[in-house]
């Protein structure tokens, strides 16, 4: 536990109290007396401090491993074949190896966000000062940092306070990563427990990063009415110089806007973005334009529209320098994590850098100073635009060229075999060769833009470009809106929905998170979000999923953000922001415990997670998640007892956490009032599961929103949605409803006739509804005992 900065003894500093206070903040100490909440048992926890909680969850939700291959290749003892019960040279089993890989992924993911947070905090302390106050919602948000309060047991007031949090996070990530070293840990569940810890740290890191940027850049502050911003390739005016920003770290992009403002260039330049930098930029300037999610990189660049590309970190293609070169657009790399082999020009004169980029002396530069990036990018983009106007830079073939290309296709199937979605490209090419591009255009809709098809084509057909060419009409009509990321949820919103949620009367919170590796394009996420908003669940979204939801128009021409309200309330579609804004979703769950139920947050993880698990009907959907960051984010939800559903490709995370509804004995809680063990049924049934289709996912969402604490009224509402969706999407009534009906009052009134015969057949018996907990320590009659 990293509390070194807090152990200052008054006797060692014989000075006035006034000056001591100042010093306290300076070194990261948060004074207890500013906060009257009692400190819980686990401020700044090591993973062993919460291991018993993890084991409670893991005894119910057991790992199912789906190895990516039979081998371990992590050390030079190997490679080792672990199949069929064999152990590696270090003694490791297949199960432990799989969970070790999950730990590695979760550590990388957490490190990515934490390092991003460290970068933001250091940079903004430098530019704005250590005492810059944290402000995420003014008077509307009193619980400003629920994750940090919960995990660290401190209440951060300024940027400087966040440094203590970062120190803790980095210590912990380093320790977890160390556990992935060859040898050592042998127990799969202990690896899983470490995964949960990484996930929890990740959410602290997410919160820290978003608090920082909201506070300093004055992003929407918990604003349900944040502006609608433009989204889609069709919204870009390519007559102007166009800058493309890609990645997850917004300061350089903000300094681009700043430079245009300071030099009266606002409105004369299109600043367009892909991925989270785009989202965060529109939180700063609603005139910036979001091109689309991560998978839009190749198609947009190859369109030739961007005159200059600024790339920062995280989800950015590793071949951007090549792609930028192909359309003669200079590239500016801005992150130490992604130096791209470029010469570091941070200390050079901007005039010289711009000249070198424009003359083609260099194809790209590395600039680690965001302010200088702002100047160089704008000036070079203006000049680049002038030059590029006169040359053809688009790589997208014309219809005639496309047909010629298609004629080359030999139908060898290599493209399909390389395509993550196994799209029938050869069939489409065959058709295209006859002049009919319908099927190719259809494939564009499920293309995730990876470009692997091109690498394997024996005939050197630019397959990806061909798809984009075929879908030209679709592409140019991509004009949508998305509500700018609002940030946190207001305390008052929590106060209003807390009751309906924990009683089950708002049937659930459904969080659409993660990226764009969907089996069927972005449309499925929009469809799901709308379905649940219409059913008066609270739909929440972030990152590329928030964009995906926006890429839809209803029969009235409205995007979902126009169709539904943005309040954290029944029937809303709430865009919290970028990936780091995911912390507001877990934060909202925590705030229900804190604000609505008045539980202490401070260093009190276990109790709060138990509360959320038993009472808050929230589910995460990472329909197209592909990265290590997504693994860490999911793990942070798991430890809070919030189930996560992934798409079919999510099975490649190699490990599910599944409950077994057929083992009735698993599904009990203690009644806090009596200590009695009460059977409550499989609610929620799973903690992490991959759904094969969106239909399966939708039914799972409805099902996994049930919680032991649901009132009969709440449960009957949740059951109505579950049964209704199951009937509609599966075509039959579910066979497990008897597990969720605790008494006849749980039965949805409109379904009574249909359900009662089934329940009778299944041998249904009345059960009482307890005040549920999994923690013996929460039983009131023996409070304090164990």
């Amino acid at each position, binding site marked *: 536990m990293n509390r070194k900065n807090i152990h200052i003894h008054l006797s060692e500093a014989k000075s006035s109290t006034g000056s001591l206070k100042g010093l306290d903040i300076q070194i990261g100490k948060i004074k207890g007396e500013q906060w009257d909440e009692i400190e819980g048992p686990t401020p700044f926890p090591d993973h062993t401090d919460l291991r018993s909680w993890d084991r409670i969850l893991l005894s119910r939700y*057991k790992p199912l491993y789906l190895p990516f291959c039979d081998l371990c290749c992590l050390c030079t003892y190997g490679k080792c074949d672990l199949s069929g019960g064999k152990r590696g040279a270090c003694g490791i089993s297949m199960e432990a190896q799989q969970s070790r890989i999950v730990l590695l992924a979760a550590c990388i993911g957490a490190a990515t966000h934490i390092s991003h947070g460290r970068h933001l905090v250091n940079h903004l302390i430098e530019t704005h000062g250590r005492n810059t106050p944290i402000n995420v919602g003014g008077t509307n948000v009193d619980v400003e940092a629920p994750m940090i309060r919960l995990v660290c047991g401190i209440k951060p007031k300024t940027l400087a306070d966040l440094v203590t949090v970062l120190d803790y996070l980095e210590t912990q990530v380093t320790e977890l990563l160390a556990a992935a070293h060859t040898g050592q840990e042998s127990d799969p569940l202990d690896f899983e427990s470490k995964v949960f810890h990484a996930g929890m740290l990740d959410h602290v890191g997410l919160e820290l990063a978003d608090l920082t940027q909201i506070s300093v850049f004055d992003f929407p502050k918990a604003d349900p009415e944040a502006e609608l911003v433009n989204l889609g390739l069709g919204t870009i005016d390519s007559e102007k110089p166009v800058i493309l920003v890609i990645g997850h770290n917004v300061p350089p992009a903000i300094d681009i806007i700043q430079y245009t403002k300071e030099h009266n260039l606002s409105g004369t330049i299109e600043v367009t973005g892909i991925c989270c930098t785009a989202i965060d930029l529109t939180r700063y300037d609603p005139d910036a334009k979001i091109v689309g999610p991560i998978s839009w990189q190749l198609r947009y660049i190859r369109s030739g529209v961007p005159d200059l590309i600024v790339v920062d970190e995280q989800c950015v293609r590793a071949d951007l320098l090549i792609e930028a070169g192909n359309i003669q657009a200079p590239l500016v790399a801005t992150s130490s994590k992604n130096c791209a082999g470029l010469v570091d020009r941070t200390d050079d004169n901007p005039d010289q850098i711009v000249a070198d980029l424009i003359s083609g002396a260099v194809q790209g530069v590395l600039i680690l100073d965001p302010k200088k990036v702002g100047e160089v990018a704008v000036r070079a983009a203006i000049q680049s635009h002038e030059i590029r106007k006169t040359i053809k830079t688009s790589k997208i073939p014309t219809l005639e060229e496309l047909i010629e290309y298609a004629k080359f296709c030999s139908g060898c199937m290599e493209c399909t*075999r390389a395509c993550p979605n196994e799209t029938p490209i050869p069939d489409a090419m065959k058709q295209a060769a006859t002049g009919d591009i319908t099927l190719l255009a259809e494939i564009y809709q499920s293309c995730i833009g990876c470009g692997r098809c091109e690498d394997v084509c024996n005939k050197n057909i630019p397959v990806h470009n061909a798809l984009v060419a075929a879908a030209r009409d679709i592409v140019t009509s991509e004009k949508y809106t998305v509500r700018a990321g609002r940030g946190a949820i207001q305390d008052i919103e929590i106060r209003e929905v807390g009751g309906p949620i924990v009683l089950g009367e708002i049937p659930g919170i459904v969080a659409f998170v993660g990226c764009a590796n969907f089996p069927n394009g972005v449309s499925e996420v929009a469809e799901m979000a709308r379905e649940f908003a219409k059913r008066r669940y609270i739909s929440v979204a972030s990152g590329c999923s928030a964009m995906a939801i926006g890429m839809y128009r209803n029969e009235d021409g409205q995007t979902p953000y126009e169709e539904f309200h943005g309040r954290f309330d029944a029937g809303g579609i709430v865009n919290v922001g970028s990936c780091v804004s995911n912390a507001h979703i877990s934060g909202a769950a925590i705030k229900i415990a804190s604000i609505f139920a008045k539980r202490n947050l401070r260093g009190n993880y276990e109790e709060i997670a138990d509360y959320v698990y038993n009472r808050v009907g929230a589910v995460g959907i990472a329909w197209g998640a592909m990265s290590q960051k997504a693994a860490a984010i999911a793990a942070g939800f798991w430890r809070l007892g919030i189930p996560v559903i992934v798409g079919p490709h999510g099975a490649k995370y190699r490990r599910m956490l599944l409950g077994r509804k057929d083992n009735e004995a698993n599904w009990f809680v203690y009644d806090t009032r009596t200590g009695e063990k009460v059977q409550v049924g499989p609610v929620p049934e799973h903690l992490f599961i991959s759904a094969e289709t969106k239909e399966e996912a939708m039914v799972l969402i409805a099902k996994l929103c049930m919680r032991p604490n649901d009132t009969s009224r709440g449960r009957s509402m949740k059951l109505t949605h579950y049964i209704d969706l199951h009937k509609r999407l599966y075509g039959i009534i579910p066979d497990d409803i008897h597990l969720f009906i605790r008494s006849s009052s749980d039965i949805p009134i409109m379904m009574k006739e249909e359900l009662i015969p089934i329940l009778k057949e299944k041998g249904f018996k009345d059960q009482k509804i307890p005040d549920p907990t999994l923690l013996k320590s929460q039983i009131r009659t023996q409070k304090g005992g164990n």
Partner: protein
Amino acid sequence: MTGQDPWIRAEMGGTKQASIISKPEVLSALMKKANHPIFLIGSESITDNKQSDLLITLIKNLKEKWNVPVISTAHITGTLISRGLVPNASMGSMEIIDRLCDNKWQGLDGKGQYDLVILAGFSYTLGSLLLSGLKQCSWNTKKISLDPKYHPHATWSYGNMKFENWQKEIERFFDIIKTDKKNMEESHV
């Protein structure tokens, strides 16, 4: 050996790779040897592609001939019923693999764990992972993939085949089923 490369090329197998179902007699012999088989049918079995009909007929045949219970994954039960195939259960693909990994599970019929698992109708990627998971947790259970794409993680799999060839194989299998006599000598696999 193109027919025996993993369909998605990066899907490497392991040190033990699926044997190829070289002729329908193999399949028939495998079915006869099985004491407690089960069939998992995935969501692609109802997509519009030309394999669907044949697959559904195949499953019906297995069900009728050897009384193989069928579990439909994903959301397809209603559609299957409307096409004349009533699955014995509907369960998520992860849920059923999880149960097949539990040696205490008593099966749908209470008769204990299954010794032969047949899969068809899954996207190749998901199918691979399901087979890999099964291989890992239940090394000795026989796993058959019936889709016309080679699955190294199965015990037995068709090679990569054109639809027409696969169709011929399956139709020959139907013939075998029809002409099969109870007292016919068991062919050895």
